[in-house]
């Protein structure tokens, strides 16, 4: 069945901001879909609120709407664009839920939009647990298959839950319906836990529905990735086995592909069930996944759930097998059948086959618990990881060890140094699933645990436990740098660094011994067919094996180092920059080579670059890739400044090893990062930095703070993403901070500029000329990490004089440091003095946002500058605009607002107050003619629409009271009923705002039973919360009050504003919504207006 000709335009919905459970894998799938649809000649209309995505680049769709993914906004877009069809299966649960909502509201019928790749009934059958259970029972009976559902009960009220738990017996699993990433689910071991978890679950579910089921904790867990076409051809793309048994969310589990502990009979039973289920559910076309639990003692198999859409696992399966699920799903949706689509990798064979792997793939999650003090670190059915790394090897130990070092986190890799600690304590620790449990198991093995003990403590399959023992045995055999030792160690995935640690020598010594023996990895191809056919698409991984398969090239090569697993502070934005560099440099005639280990990304799509190396980003692994590439042709350069801190950290060592690092030199990078050196650059340019000093003891710190004056910003000297930063207002808090800080590195103490306006700048510099990409004004005051603050571009309160100063300062820094390419500078403007806070000579988080807001491809331009082009040349080519830049945008340029999205709903009990340490996982953009509307859009995209009526609760710190009066008055004028704590109410009343006093949490319930504010919030009586924090963390009193208010807000999902500036912006936004003048406009339209 060939391509459909009755549809001409297709709307694709993306997944919105990066959040835990829904990350950049949907940028990967959405980008693939858009590329397919456009190459097939369809007009593509895209909606996604996330500006950091590659899919929202104007070149991937005909009309790109960076607008909130809410049914009303999407309806406006449909009304305007009138697409023939809607493809909702590539944007995660967000897109699917939006499509269902549009269907239910009759919007699709009204505008004659056909849903493709999905069937509403199938979506509901797959996600409605009761119906799904019936389906499983039916197919098992009809086909004589071993498949059941866990015994369970659907509950709509707490009473239902209590009754059901009584029948099923504790522990029970709680799963809310229609939520993504397992939000709101968990294990309840007793009634108290049940009340808490099921209560939150009922709230989280849009249908107020939760499922309680029997515990299958400790069972083996599997997942199959399935594709179906409209001729009912079905293939299983990949089987995935979780090493962490049931009880840990798949996203948080270490997983392996293919499944390794199933016989063919068991695997085929699973396959038969998967196929029968998706047929019965009626999945239209495309990809879906289905999860299973297997009782390790009897083989009893339970079908857990299925997702009728492309998922995180689909991205993993695509990278693991070379079978591009999203791309194929898009083709199936427009009418092709699997046999009509060629396998991209072999070119000669069709996509209607099942990949065969002759390697092992291991995925490990990356967590960020260190960012969320107070969060429960136990892994549960509620996903908590923020990213993942994948590695490929020819054996499980090789793949596992590569994956662990891909995490780039201290303490991730197995170690044989130091004391192991007490065996019993280690085994006890293993019982609780946690970040790094495999390493705890490895330490237990070192400490003398038996395989039985390790299995008993973890329920991890004995086969995997044995593999850990195999790794341990190899480690123990490492006593010398001879060939047999090194060969065995390398085949088990040991890094040079690990071997060096075991032998107590330098890593360089191991490397040179290895080179002398000629012991280097080879690169095998991911070919979908276990070498049965020749592969045409070079997608490579290193392994210590026999033959290398790196093809010989004829063009000069550029190697781009990616950014590794997503983490807070280093996410999709850096992948964006790398991908654009790859596209642009290919166009400029280079052969592009990508190195990365993050399976969720577009950069690790084999279509993105001429060659993809799926490899850890450590010095050893990168040096080997460079070596392999140099063996087959000249390498013109290695690009390190686009992938964030990860490749930047390797720059000097690569250069020292003779690797041609291009762009800003490692020395220049050092100049920007080293305080003293950077201070000299600033001094020469006549620029000011906030007063600062360093201290290693409490006394020194006191003296420094005394001299520069409180408040001060304190942070350890070697950190990324603001880790461990704090703002300190008094001596006591400073002493506490110093006593907690690690003593080996000094602590940096900066004057904290209270009430300053913070400004972020992205610029390009070619050695001569500066191109100011964009000037962003933070909406929140200084002191909140730039990644967590909302910002506006063009800056809404800065005048021409300020921009001029900023331009001059940025150029002086670029010149002083020696930048070639991108530069990000953060400034603070206080009392009319422009302070330089920091400069990063690399791609920043805001590059994609600036590119979209100003319609200029900054990352592409940066890549060209890196390879020697000049800004004048790029202006002449039309890549950069002629005559103006991001600092001189016309007055009628649209205003873009970036808002950060924070994962507090995942980490209950963590304070939501923003600070100098970055905690957001993603961002959204609102773009409109006016600031108020743009801000309202950004809020609606990030957290759901701002309320336009109801009750607003206001409680602000004394220092904020004056500034809060005007916006609160505006809220009251808009018709909000104002509730306030006593102090705030007093100030408001004196200023003519009627405010009702409510009791603080610390005051307790009143004599007449008057509820506290926290109670009111929990009871749903409040629609908007304004609460600026005061007092120090950890204290009782006001600080604790605020904490409980904000926690209640997170629990109820109520908008909670924690800065006065945010309040002012929100009020403007609400005014615009009330006026009803929210319109939609595509990036292409904005760009046309800007360029005309």
């Amino acid at each position, binding site marked *: 069945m060939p391509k459909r000709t009755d549809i001409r335009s297709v709307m694709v919905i993306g997944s919105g901001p990066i959040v835990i459970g829904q990350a950049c894998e949907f940028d990967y799938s959405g980008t693939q879909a858009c590329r397919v649809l456009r190459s097939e000649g369809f007009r593509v209309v895209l909606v996604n609120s996330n500006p950091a995505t590659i899919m929202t680049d104007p070149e991937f769709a005909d009309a790109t709407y960076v607008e909130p993914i809410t049914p009303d906004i999407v309806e406006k877009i449909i009304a305007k664009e009138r697409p023939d069809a809607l493809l909702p299966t590539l944007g995660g649960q967000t897109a699917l839920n939006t499509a269902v909502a549009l269907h239910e509201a009759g919007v699709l019928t009204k505008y004659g939009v056909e849903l493709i790749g999905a069937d509403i009934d199938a979506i509901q059958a797959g996600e409605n647990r009761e119906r799904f259970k019936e389906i499983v029972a039916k197919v098992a009976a009809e086909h004589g298959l071993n498949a059941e559902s866990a015994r369970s009960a659907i509950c709509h009220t707490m009473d239902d839950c209590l009754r059901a738990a009584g029948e099923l017996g504790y522990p029970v699993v709680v799963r809310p319906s229609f939520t993504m990433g397992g939000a709101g689910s968990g294990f309840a071991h007793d009634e108290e836990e049940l009340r808490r978890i099921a209560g939150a679950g009922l709230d989280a579910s849009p249908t107020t529905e939760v499922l309680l089921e029997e515990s299958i904790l400790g069972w083996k867990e599997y997942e199959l990735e399935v594709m179906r076409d409209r001729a009912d051809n079905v293939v299983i793309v990949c089987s995935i086995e979780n090493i962490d048994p049931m009880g840990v969310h798949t996203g948080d589990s270490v997983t392996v592909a293919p499944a390794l*502990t*199933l016989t063919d009979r068991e695997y*085929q039973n699973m396959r038969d069930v998967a196929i029968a289920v998706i047929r019965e559910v009626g999945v239209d076309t495309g990809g879906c996944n289905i999860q299973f639990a297997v009782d390790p003692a009897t083989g009893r198999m339970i079908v857990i759930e299925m997702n009728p859409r492309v998922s995180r696992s689909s991205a993993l399966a695509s990278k693991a097998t070379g079978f591009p699920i999203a791309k194929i799903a898009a083709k199936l949706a427009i009418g092709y059948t699997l046999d009509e689509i060629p396998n991209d990798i072999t070119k000669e064979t069709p996509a*209607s086959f099942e990949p*065969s*792997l*002759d390697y092992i793939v291991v995925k490990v999650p990356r967590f960020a618990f260190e960012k969320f003090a107070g969060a429960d670190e136990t892994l549960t059915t509620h996903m908590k990881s923020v990213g993942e790394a994948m590695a490929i090897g*020819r054996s499980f130990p090789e793949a596992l060890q590569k994956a662990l070092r891909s995490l780039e986190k201290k303490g991730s890799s197995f170690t044989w140094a130091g004391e192991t600690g007490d065996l019993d304590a280690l085994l006890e620790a293993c019982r609780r699933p946690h970040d790094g449990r495999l390493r705890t198991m490895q330490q237990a093995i070192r400490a003398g645990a038996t395989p039985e003990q390790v299995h008993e403590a973890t329920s991890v399959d004995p*086969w995997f436990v*044995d593999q850990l023992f195999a790794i341990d045995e190899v480690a123990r055999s490492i006593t010398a740098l001879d060939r047999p030792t090194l060969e065995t160690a390398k085949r088990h995935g040991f890094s040079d660094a690990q071997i060096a640690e075991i032998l107590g020598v330098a890593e360089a010594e191991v490397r040179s011994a290895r080179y002398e023996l000629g012991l280097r990895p080879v690169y095998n191809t991911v070919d979908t067919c276990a070498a049965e056919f020749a592969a045409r698409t070079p997608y490579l991984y290193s392994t210590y094996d026999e033959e290398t398969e790196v093809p010989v090239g004829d063009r000069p090569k550029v190697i781009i180092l990616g950014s590794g697993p997503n983490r807070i502070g280093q996410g999709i934005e850096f992948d964006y920059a790398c991908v654009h560099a790859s596209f642009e440099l290919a166009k400029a005639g280079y052969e592009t080579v990508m190195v990365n280990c993050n399976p969720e990304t577009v950069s690790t799509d084999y279509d993105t670059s001429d060659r993809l190396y799926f490899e850890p980003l450590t010095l050893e692994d990168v040096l080997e890739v460079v070596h392999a590439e140099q063996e087959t042709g000249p390498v013109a350069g290695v690009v390190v400044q686009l992938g964030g801190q990860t490749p930047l950290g390797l720059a000097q060592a690569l250069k020292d090893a003779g690797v041609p690092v291009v762009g800003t030199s490692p020395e220049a990078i050092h100049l920007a990062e080293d305080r003293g050196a950077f201070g000299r650059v600033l001094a020469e340019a006549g620029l000011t930095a906030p007063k600062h000093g360093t201290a290693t003891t409490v006394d020194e710190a006191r003296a420094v703070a005394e001299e520069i004056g409180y408040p001060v910003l304190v942070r350890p000297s070697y950190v990324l993403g603001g880790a461990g930063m704090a703002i300190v207002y008094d001596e006591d808090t400073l002493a506490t901070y110093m006593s907690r800080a690690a003593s080996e590195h000094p602590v940096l103490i900066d004057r904290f500029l209270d009430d300053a306006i913070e400004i972020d700048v992205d610029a390009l510099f070619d050695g001569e000329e500066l191109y100011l990409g964009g000037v962003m004004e933070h909406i929140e005051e200084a002191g909140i990490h730039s990644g967590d603050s909302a910002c506006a571009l063009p800056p809404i309160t800065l005048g021409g004089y300020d921009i001029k100063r900023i331009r001059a300062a940025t150029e002086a820094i670029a010149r002083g440091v020696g930048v070639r390419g991108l530069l990000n500078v953060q400034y603070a403007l206080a009392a009319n003095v422009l302070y330089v806070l920091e400069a990063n000579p690399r791609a920043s988080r805001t590059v994609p946002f600036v590119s979209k807001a100003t319609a200029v491809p900054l990352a592409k331009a940066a890549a060209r500058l890196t390879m020697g082009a000049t800004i004048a040349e790029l202006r002449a080519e039309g890549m950069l605009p002629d005559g103006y830049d991001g600092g001189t945008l016309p007055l009628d340029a649209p205003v873009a607002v970036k808002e950060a999205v924070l994962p507090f709903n995942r980490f209950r009990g963590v304070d939501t107050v923003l600070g100098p340490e970055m905690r957001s996982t993603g961002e959204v953009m609102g773009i409109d003619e006016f600031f108020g509307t743009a801000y309202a859009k950004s809020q609606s995209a990030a957290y759901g629409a701002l309320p336009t009526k109801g009750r607003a609760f206001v409680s602000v710190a004394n220092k904020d009271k004056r500034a809060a009066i005007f916006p609160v008055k505006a809220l009251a004028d808009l018709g909000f009923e104002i509730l306030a704590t006593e102090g705030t109410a007093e100030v408001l009343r004196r200023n003519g705002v009627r405010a009702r006093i409510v009791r603080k949490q610390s005051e307790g319930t009143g004599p007449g039973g008057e509820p506290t504010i926290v109670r009111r919030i929990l009871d749903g009586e409040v629609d908007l919360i304004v609460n600026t924090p005061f007092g120090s963390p950890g204290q009782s009193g006001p600080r604790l009050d605020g904490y409980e208010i904000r926690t209640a807000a997170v629990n109820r999902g109520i908008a909670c504003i924690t800065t006065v500036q945010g309040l002012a912006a929100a009020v403007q936004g609400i005014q615009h919504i009330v006026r009803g003048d929210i319109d939609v406009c595509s990036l292409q339209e904005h760009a046309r207006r800007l360029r005309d």
Partner: protein
Amino acid sequence: MTALLVLEDGRVFEGTPYGAVGETFGEMVFNTGMTGYQETLTDPSYHRQIVAMTAPHIGNTGVNDEDPESRRVWVAGYVVREPSRIPSNWRSRRTLDDYLREQGVVGIAMSGTRALTRHLRERGAMRAGVFSEGGDVAELVERVRRSPGMEGADLAREVSTPEPYVVPARGRKRFTVAAVDLGIKAMTPERMAERGCEVHVLPATAGAADILALGPDGVFFSNGPGDPAAAGYAVESLREVLDASVPFFGICFGNQILGRALGLGTYKLRYGHRGVNQPVQDRRTGKVEISAHNHGFAVRAPLDGPFETPYGAAEVSHVNLNDDCVEGLRLLDRPAFSVQYHPEAAAGPHDAAYLFDEFCEIMNKKGAKGA
């Protein structure tokens, strides 16, 4: 101890001994299945072949009592990358290593299984030897070259059951099937039995008279090892069966025998199809089934439409989408069809199980007509 895998073209791989210690010769082939090593080892079609598994970890689920496809291991030698150190499965009874040793199968564990596969893909299947204790390479190559090749080899007789036996129908008996064992796998009669067939399994050399003496509703020719060109006796028997218009179904070797009985040629594929992921299209419906394959030979037949045979018009019913290889034949005027791949699966997906239903259907129709 360094074990060697020596190919007839002089390529040598080093590894460590696995399974039984000794030496073995055979045709070197590779199998791309990621599950089902136990079924593969016991598949008689692998007789006289040294099988390399492309999946790296083999033996993880041990060896159980339920999954063998015949009474013994047939592979001549076994090549794996990462033999499992322990088995882990609730049905496992022994380790694969012990099982191979018990069955006298010489194997080798070596890192170069992918290099080997690439070599065979480029150069074609060839003779090879596994030598647990190594030896002088030049001499070993010479010995490999002197070992017998696969072309012209009549091996079905060597693997076939010496005596007939009956697999009773499950539930109500609907049909009597005479199944000629050219290397039959246990799952094949099982699949028929569960559809109400009483399966009389006969030795490879069973003549048409022996077959027809059972008064079967249908006749089945199984898979098996070796060169179909060397199994003239089976072709003869089948011709008589076709003359008698008894419904016929053939699998794999049985497909090649049908091809030869129809006057078509068979030829040796460069490196064969061995795995569980091959896309086969049913040309009548256009549907694609993912199928289990194990064949080194194939039938040469016109793909562009029906063609004439001594038994009337026939057509290619199934084709492999990877390489357009003929995967199925069907007579248009008589109840006879066959496929080159394995609808009984074991190991492999069950997509093609409908072919057993079709066999039952033609027996049913014939029975209705005959009655």
